[in-house]
């Protein structure tokens, strides 16, 4: 299965939600649509699912144009954030629902349902009702239900946002493992950068209806192309060209040509190297201890930068430090 999204545009009563979005998802790819709320990522997912019609653009699945195909003929497995289980059906009936709609035999449905429930680790809860399950269990049922329909693609709309942090981390791993073992192309919408970094093969970072950058999690983190991506994914110290010229002139060599205002240097907190130095230009303002790591706000020539170093470092608040950087990326402002 190969999905190509081609120049999708959508406006709601004059307000542009999607403005020429394109990307593709290959065989067994896990693609994350990442962006702040209101960036159009959910609308895009609904367009892929066939629940919303785009104003322009095409959706091509395995070479055939499915833009005009109604949702029920697309065979996409959908998992929503919450409240998508039928409250008056048991877990088993929920999972068997898509198969019942297709008129499969009761025996086949029963076998399949049991298999899928086993697969998501809910074999013993088949007779329960949704409101007797925890949030994590409900989402497992929703996942099993989406997959039991034998879909061509799996579409996940913020499936973990409504869950506790511990369950969320656990389900991340489970969803990813299940997806790998099935080799099913998957698109997940999320506003949680950690989730996207941890799960995706490819991240499509969106902002205000446009794609900001597409790439692997590492690529987006280490080589953000725009100020938005640098800021949205991880922590970023964004330094103007004039400041870099005065403090870290070696970075100017790799700066793309252009006026001072067009590019800024993005330094991740771990890119900064700070060492105790009585003659250093920086002063540690405060330190947040995180266990293995510690983060410090450092006053540096009238700016404040965030630096990260090992938790066992002897640096203390108020100490003067020297500052250097090991790598950085120039981003469009």
């Amino acid at each position, binding site marked *: 299965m190969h999905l190509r999204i081609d120049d999708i545009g959508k406006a709601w*009563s004059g307000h542009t939600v999607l403005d020429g979005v394109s990307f593709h998802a290959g065989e067994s790819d896990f693609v994350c649509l990442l962006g702040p709320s209101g960036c159009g990522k959910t609308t895009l997912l*609904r367009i892929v699912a*066939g*629940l919303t019609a785009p104003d322009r653009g095409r959706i091509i699945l395995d070479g055939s144009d499915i833009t005009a195909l109604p949702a*029920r003929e697309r065979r996409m497995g959908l998992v929503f*954030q919450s409240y*998508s289980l039928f409250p008056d059906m048991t877990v088993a009936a929920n999972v068997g629902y898509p198969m019942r*709609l297709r008129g499969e035999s009761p025996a086949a449905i029963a076998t399949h349902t049991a298999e899928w429930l086993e697969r998501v680790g809910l074999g013993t809860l088949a007779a329960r009702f949704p409101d007797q399950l925890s949030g994590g269990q409900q989402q497992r049922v929703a996942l099993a239900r989406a997959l039991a329909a034998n879909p061509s693609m799996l579409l996940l709309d913020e499936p973990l946002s409504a869950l506790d942090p511990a369950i969320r981390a656990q389900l991340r791993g489970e969803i990813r493992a299940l997806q790998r073992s099935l080799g099913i192309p998957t698109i997940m919408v999320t506003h949680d950068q950690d989730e996207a970094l941890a799960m995706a093969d490819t991240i499509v970072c969106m902002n205000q209806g446009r794609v900001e950058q597409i790439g692997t999690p590492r690529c987006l983190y280490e080589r953000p192309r725009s100020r938005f991506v640098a800021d949205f994914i991880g922590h970023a110290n964004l330094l103007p060209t004039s400041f870099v010229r005065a403090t870290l002139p070696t970075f100017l060599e790799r700066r793309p040509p252009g006026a001072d205002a067009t590019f800024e240097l993005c330094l991740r907190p771990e890119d900064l190297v700070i060492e105790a130095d009585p003659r250093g230009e920086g002063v540690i303002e405060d330190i947040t201890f995180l266990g293995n790591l510690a983060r410090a706000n450092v006053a540096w020539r009238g700016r404040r930068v965030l630096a990260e170093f090992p938790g066992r470092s002897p640096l203390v608040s108020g100490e003067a430090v020297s500052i250097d950087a090991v790598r950085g990326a120039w981003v469009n402002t």
Partner: protein
Amino acid sequence: MSSIVAVRAVARPRLGAGLLLALPLSGLLLFFVQPLLTVLWRSVTDAKGAFTFANYARLFDDPGLPRAALHSLSIGVATTFTTMAFGLCLAMALHRSRLPGKFLIRGALLLPMLAPSLVLGLGLVCLLGRNGLVHRLTGLPTDIYGFWGLLIANTLYGLPQVVIIVSAALERTPARHYDAAESMGATPWRQFIDVTVPRLRFALLAAAFLVFTETLTDFGSAVVVGGSYRVLAMEIYSEVVGQLDFAMGATLGVVLLAPALLSVWLGRLAKRRQDSGDASPGRALVPARHALRDAALGALALLALVPVVAVVGTVAYVSVVKLWPYDRTLTLANYTGGMPDGYGPVATSLGVSLLAAVVGVVMIFALSAGLRRASPRIARPLQVLASLPAAVPGMVLGLGYVLTFNHGVLSSWFYGSAAIVAACSLYHYHAQAFLTMQTGMRQVPDALEDAVASFGGDTRHVLRDAVLPFAMPAAISAFFYLFMRSLVTLSGVIFLVTPGLGLASVAVMRLDENGFLAQAAAYAMCVVVAGALALGLMRLLLHVLKDRRHVA
């Protein structure tokens, strides 16, 4: 966020939405809009059908009519004030006091919902009329007919509705607001002024408009306890039934329609403002100890509810005496053979109510489900249309039915049938049932509908598997609301009954007019008991429904 939710509706598959809307829409046009327009048209045409305002000029020829208008307004304003005062106290007693026995208050408040204003009026007459129980027992010269009788009957009738609206607003006020006020040192009285009252403003306005409209358009108590204090509803009745002057009846109907429309519109405005409430009620509120407050609220609750119980109790008592008020030997004769038409009218009333409820709930379900998927441009006006019946007095609608359906294609079988009475009841009470259903529809998660669509389900499956499970409690409530209201309504159907089609509420009125109070009371009690049984059944069904998901 709300704007996004609103536009999402456009995107859902619209196949079937048109089909869902077609039937309820044609029902509204045929059985609500058409009769209403007929009344309007009749009021501005003369006998030959030429356009004229002469009917409106005639309003002032008869000095009785402006006087009736003044009476209606006086009663409306006075009733609104007393009902609001007592209703607020009762709601406060229920939600902001530590009074014991709140279930007694709730129970007593059920009575006026089961007994129409007609029955309350009847009870008042039997209790405080010239020959009433109080006069018989004490010899005091009592005479309840007129302003005071109407005021009491309408106040008792309006009480539960005010309590329901105000209670809903009180329940929505989160306890943490009181905690915050308390921690800053506000006295209980200041908390009432600063926390409670601001949250109640719009509920109070909405309730006041509702009571005012209902009182203004009420016919049941007017006909029984109005006496020589004639109000507009009585004048319409006399014009149409007494003098067969349909044009004058229609003109008076339009006069009655105007303030009712205005008040419903203002009430809606008030209600819209109120919806911007706090979403999370949080911890349940437990009122602090305050003996004086509880004593005062308790006394006021007693003052409001003793008459309710006394009036309905009197009807029950009168229904089992031999010959009211002269021979008060207890007997069941009124139930076993004393009723002039036997149980026929009660059976007809039940049948008509069942018809109205069954057809009504199906139509309103289809309408609400269709509106979920319709584009806002279609949905907005339809919502207004479906809520409009709240502003139309039953008598005006009933008169419209007479003028519209006594000729034409439908007249041969429809006019004078149980169906026309059911239709009139259904569309008279359409607005509230629709509102209930809309609220239920809002419980349906969008994700569930989308899920069904993505698994290959069509509109049928969406309705059955996603919408119905969530909308079921609302559908049950709407069904029983329509049933119970149709059972007791008098104003809407008074022009539609024929000798061959007796209804219980009409029988009560006729028997009362002719002085057969005991038999009238017996019919009234049948209606009250049937309503109580229906209410019990509804609660049971809702309970079972609520339980079903958790057990099993």
